[in-house]
């Protein structure tokens, strides 16, 4: 089980204070067997990257709830590459844009920004964890819910 205890960094980007989903995500991914470094809310891009480098995390899970996701999340992939995290898995989720928007448009926008997967508020965390397992090439099954 320790083999799959991959480290992931979690946080809410920008000036965003929405802490409830973040606390739930931390608990959830920990329960499923990941080693979660949770930076909490109001996390600048570089703080995510610092933490990932420091802890050797293989994935960064970015949340944005408050609507400024489009601005705050832009350039994150490039910055990761710049700072040497070429291979880090980048997920993003939440209420990513201002205003109710078609899911496809949102997903497309953030995929183009370089996020590997894009999650909307109602997403199933079980599925997200399973995808993360696959994307990280973990072969053992996750811990039970």
């Amino acid at each position: 089980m320790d083999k799959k205890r991959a480290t992931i960094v979690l946080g809410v980007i920008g000036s965003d204070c929405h802490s409830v989903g973040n606390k739930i995500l931390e608990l959830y991914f920990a329960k499923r067997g990941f080693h979660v470094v949770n930076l909490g809310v109001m996390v600048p891009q570089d703080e995510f990257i610092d933490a990932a480098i420091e802890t050797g995390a293989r994935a960064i899970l970015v949340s944005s709830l408050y609507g400024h996701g489009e601005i705050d999340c832009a350039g994150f992939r490039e910055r990761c590459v710049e700072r040497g995290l070429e291979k880090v898995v980048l997920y993003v989720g939440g209420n990513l844009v201002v205003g109710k928007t078609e899911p496809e448009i949102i997903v497309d926008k953030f995929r183009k920004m370089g996020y590997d997967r894009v999650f909307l508020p109602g997403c199933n965390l079980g599925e997200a964890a399973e995808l993360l397992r696959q994307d990280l090439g973990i072969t053992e099954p996750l811990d039970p819910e």
Partner: protein
Amino acid sequence: MVKANVKISRDEFFRVRGEVLATWPTGAAVASLDEGIRRQQALPAHKQFARAMSEARRKGQTLLQPRAGVALVEDHVRLLNYLATEGEADLLPTTIDAYTRQNRYDEAANGIKRSEEAGTSLLNGFPAVNHGLDACRRVVESVDKPVQVRHGTPDARLLAEITLSAGFSSYEGGGISYNIPYTKRVPLAKSIRDWQYVDRLVGLYGEAGVTINREPFGPLTGTLVPPCISHAVGIIEGLLALEQGVRSLTLGYGQTGNMMQDVAAMISLRELADDYFRRDGHEDFELTTVFHQWMGGFPEDESKAFAVISLGAAVAVLSRADKVIVKTPHEAMGIPTKEANARGLRATRQMVNMLTGQKMGDDSAALRREVDMIKAEVRCLLEKTRELGGGDWAVGAAAAFESGVLDVPFAPSIYNRGRLLPVRDDEGFVRIYQPGNAPFTPEILAYHAARLAERSRTEGRSLSFQMVTDDIYAISKGKLIGRPM
């Protein structure tokens, strides 16, 4: 022990004021307080917020107010007018964007620029500081209702200077309620101090005969907050505001979803606040209340959202709220379009109109018991806070959060202990599951525990964080209580 809850002297106020206005170029335009006072004095009666609240209270009405704000001035004006006409709103807001709330005016400037390019708002509110005095005047002058600034800003001094000078006649927030749920690293002593400045500013307008309405933010994190906690915070912020000369105070509360708890909460809030204010020697104030429709996660389905909105509207009236803050069918998804915002308002309007004057269970003994329970809980929290502050509410508040006497569930601030955990009981009342360091009496804790044991029994599972999580999701998944399938 420093005395912190004291009226800021004129001298000190104006000394600080110079610094505040210098923090962004648009500050210069409001240098003259007298001009702001003159603009406020020139506001017609029907655009004065305090007056509207006071009339609502006198007539037993519940006024409707949406939340709304977009990046660009003309769009914002159009939005507010739409909400007044198509939405039948009684009171208008100007919701401030999240960069401005963190005093990141350069990022707000970028948001404005990008919004102009995109032809649509990329900000989640109106960046009033960046737009400055003239744009804010344009907002106030273009609408025919009272307008309030609604935000979430720990240091809201410059924002207050600009918006009040422009004629906004109500200002939401407080040193605790706009810190703990809204930020991560702002020390409470700092945000309390900065909000004393705002209250003193309102007090200065007051000395010139202009009553600006002030509204502490009741719902805090909006997520399973037990009424006693938000009441304690609201009452402390009220006391701090009164000390600085605020006279028109609207205390708020966010719906939990259990009707009886919500009505009891509103009754106890009024009674407690009045009591605490008078006990501290305040006489010359007008207290009104605001009920927030469900502040936690909403269902994505718009029809279901309408039911959540409607229940909030119903309880607002049954609990005799003077004002109700209205959600929209887009809540779960994103900032509402003006149409969706107006739809939430119209549903609320219909419900409010249908129920106004109705009494349901006013004479209920069970209701009275809940009122008394909330009062007892709040007294535990406030008496300990008073003690910690040696009688000074500002000092006490900071100490209370440090020690976990006051503890807001799920808050992001590192200055909040985060050890208190709420969960719903078998009828959906939000109860204390783990008190952390909150100084409730054994009787109170036993009452909560007994009610929670009922739920444990019904569901055949013990209390756990899983149950709390289930409750957090419940309304968005179509239930009040997060029961296992």
